């Protein structure tokens, strides 16, 4: 280790908007993108006299997420007020959970970015429920400060998932986030749309520097305002370098400076200090007297646990052990979401070989989805139909290249079956004699290829296959190669 070797220490706080129909403490809709201040009521506007009433669905989603993150679920939890003034916080406090989070002490495993066969584990400190604030929109274009507030988002349920500082590189942070997002998507608890703000990430970063025989921790910095996983990665790379340079310059250690908050600027690619004041403020947490403590029965946790879907890690393992897929292939399929896994499962259940289905999915199916911008559920070729096609290849009824034509024909003509597709595409099973004739002609027409092959260079055969296809599109490339080779060999012996 050199004198200035350091270890990066990264913890993440992820705010996830839960997919409830209505807000956490009132009946207003949570749909995104409605005209400003149209999804509000006395409760989420914080009007005098209004009172919150808990949306039980939000706690169910929180329990579900907590279980999937291997968390303990609190038997009793309560609601606390976090007091601070801001125009997008109409009550002057946010209802949150301070010292009794609904979920605590869990972990999430994900593929080690440095070793695809190994797992990294990040421990979860807590996951608690709270209400979202509104949005402030600052318009200074008109030459004067003009702030407007949209309270549609106010009161939307958030689950704040706080990790231990167990990540040691931006890659690992990205790996954790990617796996977390996938998990949440599988659970169906959030749409995880970062552009719409339904998944927001803050990072706590510092360095442990080995210097002069001791470990020095640099002051912890909270980085905010990262609007994509790519931004998180870039911000962390930048922040690590910046902290190291800062330490070189000032020698300042943790405890010698207050915790700082910095905002990531995606355009200039730097982090900039935000107002210190926010950080030093005292939120004066105390139990919200308008709400009663929440008791969570064991039976409720058990039924939530039983209702958990297959999670990404379980599905990856299943694809590898049960179907012999490679880790990479298993991950590609699982990363696409549970519907694609179901598609795979249905095709395999219909008798098609898993590896062939896996490669069809990774090539043709995913390409088709991307080109059309559709979800797997909308694919015109259902899993059983793909299975029948793959089975036809297996039995030698059709070759792979013509099968791809069938696949794309089905994309355009969803109601047609294999027979109809074959006749529309002019695919017929051909007589061996016919192909023999084609091959004979080809060898006559291409003596240079024959000569090459006789000299031990079989490469030329490939060009014959292409030519054979031109003469008869139904020619099976395997058969053409086989016949040509036999005929050339027989010419050698006859000459």
């Amino acid at each position, binding site marked *: 280790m050199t004198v200035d070797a350091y270890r990066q220490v990264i913890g993440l706080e992820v705010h996830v908007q839960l997919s409830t129909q209505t807000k956490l403490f009132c009946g207003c809709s949570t749909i995104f993108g409605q005209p400003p201040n149209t999804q509000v009521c006395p409760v989420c506007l914080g009007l*005098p*006299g209004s009172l919150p009433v808990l949306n039980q669905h939000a706690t169910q989603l929180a329990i579900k997420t907590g279980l999937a993150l291997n968390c303990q679920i609190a038997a009793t939890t309560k609601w606390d007020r976090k007091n601070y003034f801001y125009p997008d916080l109409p009550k*002057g406090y946010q209802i949150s959970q301070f010292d009794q989070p609904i979920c605590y002490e869990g972990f999430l495993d994900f593929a080690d970015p440095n070793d695809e066969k190994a797992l990294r584990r990040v421990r979860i400190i807590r996951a608690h429920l709270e209400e979202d604030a509104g949005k402030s929109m600052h318009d200074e274009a008109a030459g004067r400060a003009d702030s407007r507030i949209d309270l549609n988002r106010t009161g939307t349920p958030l689950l704040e998932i706080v990790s231990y500082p167990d990540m040691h590189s931006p890659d690992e942070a990205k790996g954790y986030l990617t796996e977390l997002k996938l998990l949440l998507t599988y659970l169906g608890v959030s749409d995880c749309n970062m552009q719409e703000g339904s998944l927001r990430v803050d990072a706590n970063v510092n360095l442990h520097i080995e210097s002069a025989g001791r470990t020095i921790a640099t002051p912890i910095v909270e980085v905010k305002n990262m609007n994509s996983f790519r931004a998180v990665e870039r911000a962390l790379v930048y922040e690590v370098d910046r902290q190291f340079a800062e330490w070189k310059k000032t020698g300042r250690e943790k405890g010698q400076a207050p915790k700082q908050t910095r905002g990531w600027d995606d355009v200039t690619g730097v982090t900039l200090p935000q107002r210190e004041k926010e950080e030093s403020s005292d939120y004066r947490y*105390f139990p919200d*007297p308008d*709400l009663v403590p929440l008791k969570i029965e064991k039976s409720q946790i058990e039924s939530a646990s039983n209702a958990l879907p297959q999670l990404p890690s379980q599905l990856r393992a299943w694809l590898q052990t049960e179907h012999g897929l490679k880790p990479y292939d298993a991950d590609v399929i699982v990363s696409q979401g549970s519907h694609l896994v179901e598609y795979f499962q249905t095709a395999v259940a219909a008798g098609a070989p898993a590896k062939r289905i896996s490669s069809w999915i990774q090539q043709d199916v995913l390409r088709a989805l991307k080109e059309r911008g559709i979800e797997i559920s909308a694919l015109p070729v259902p899993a059983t139909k793909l299975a029948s096609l793959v089975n036809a290849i297996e039995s030698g009824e059709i070759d792979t290249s013509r099968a791809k034509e069938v696949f794309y024909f089905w994309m355009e003509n969803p109601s047609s079956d294999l027979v109809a597709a074959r006749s529309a595409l002019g695919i017929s099973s051909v007589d061996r004699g016919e192909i023999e004739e084609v091959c004979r002609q080809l060898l006559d027409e291409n003596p240079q290829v024959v000569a090459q092959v006789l000299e031990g260079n079989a490469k030329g055969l490939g060009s014959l296959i292409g030519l054979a296809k031109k003469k008869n599109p139904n020619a099976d490339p395997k058969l053409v190669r086989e016949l040509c080779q036999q005929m050339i060999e027989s010419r050698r012996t006859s000459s």
Partner: protein
Amino acid sequence: MKLEELSALDLGRKIAGRTLSSREVVAYFLERIARFNSSITAFSQVCADLALEKADQIDRQIASGMAMGPLAGVPIAIKDILCTREMRTTCGSRMLENFVAPYDATSVEKMERAGLVTLGKTNMDEFAMGASTETSIFGATHNPWSLERTAGGSSGGSAAALAAGMTPLSIGTDTGGSIRQPAAFCGVCGLKPTYGRVSRYGLVAFASSLDQIGPLAHRVEDLAACLETIAGHDSRDSTSINAPVPQYTRLINRSISNMRIGVVREQIEHAGLAPEIRSAVNRAMEFLTGLGATIVDIGLPHSRYSIATYYVIAPCEASSNLARYDGAHYGLRADTKSLHGESPLEDMYCHSRSQGFGEEVKRRIMLGTFALSSGYYDAYYRKAQQVRRLIFDDYHRAFEQADVLLGPVTPTTAFRLGERLQDPVQMYLGDLFTVGANLAGIPALAIPAGNDQAGLPLSIQLQGPPLAEEKLLSVAYQLEQALFFQPRTANLS
């Protein structure tokens, strides 16, 4: 006929029997308001046209033979802290001087459904923080029995309106005695129900864990009828109790001969208790013994901490509840455009809150903010919650020995306006006998017990276990029937 001497239920019976129309009754009280409100300031707003319109509607419904409740067509006055769609809800504060809520409080909806006719909103201490109704932007409410004295507070307007014969029924709220103390000072009945018995939805919060809505009236049967109207579970209030509402009016005439009446040692022996109030309690005790009740000596050892506990918890909750009045969304916003400070937003907050709130509200916000601050939370808020638990336990033990506790409402009769305004601690100490019921969440009731030599009303308090309102009403009914009957409205000219 002097309608102000009839009970609300009597008025209801006459309206239902069509010997009187609701319009006549409403017009009668509106006329008295017009005559006396300028000297009493019981009402902060009067909505004469709305009230007459509503009265006509009730009269038409009665004429058409529609089945109506016992209070249909009867006028009522509502404390200016309950949200009403059709009137401003000011809380006696500059901050909400022009605020109109877009919704009705649950209790207001229930009164509306019962056919009660709202005459207007009653004056109160700003945001219910006070015991003298002197901190309102509408000016102090005067005690109809002695105009230079306070009507009490914070529901001073609701009590004074009754005592001045300007309404047969009114609604107040009680966080530390704010229904019972003004009822005592004005010689009327007032009931603070069990916490959660009446929905708080639409009650502008002062201290959420202590606030409770309740009726004030001349007669115990009116308290019963009004409570029956406004009580009940409300899915919009998570702290509301899901228990059936008894028919209090049918239960109040029950015999109390087997009841154990507890007399709280710490109250009756308190050095600051006015002798005439002590005598009134003793007379009540004798009377109840005469009816066959047993008197039990009760100790509430932690009651001596109740004022301190209350004045930590209530300001803590208030400091947070009142944070929403920041000038950003509604209510008063100070004009700070010319200030050019470092933070225009903070300027707006500071000046709006400085201008919008009065001294007492600011004092309590600061007290609460301090007590919740990191480093002080454990010493104040947490400690206060622990003592609150001990106070609750005291009551719990007391109610194993007694069905109902009897004692004074206030240490003294109505004090002079201005007398305690500069001495908040003196003002706070007046809540000594009332805050316990709020801290423990139990029901408590004040009924008149005659007048002292100076002609000022005396009053006694009954406290009961959670949801024992019917017991309190039964005992109060007996006391009222036999012992303390008197004309209830002050003579005003």
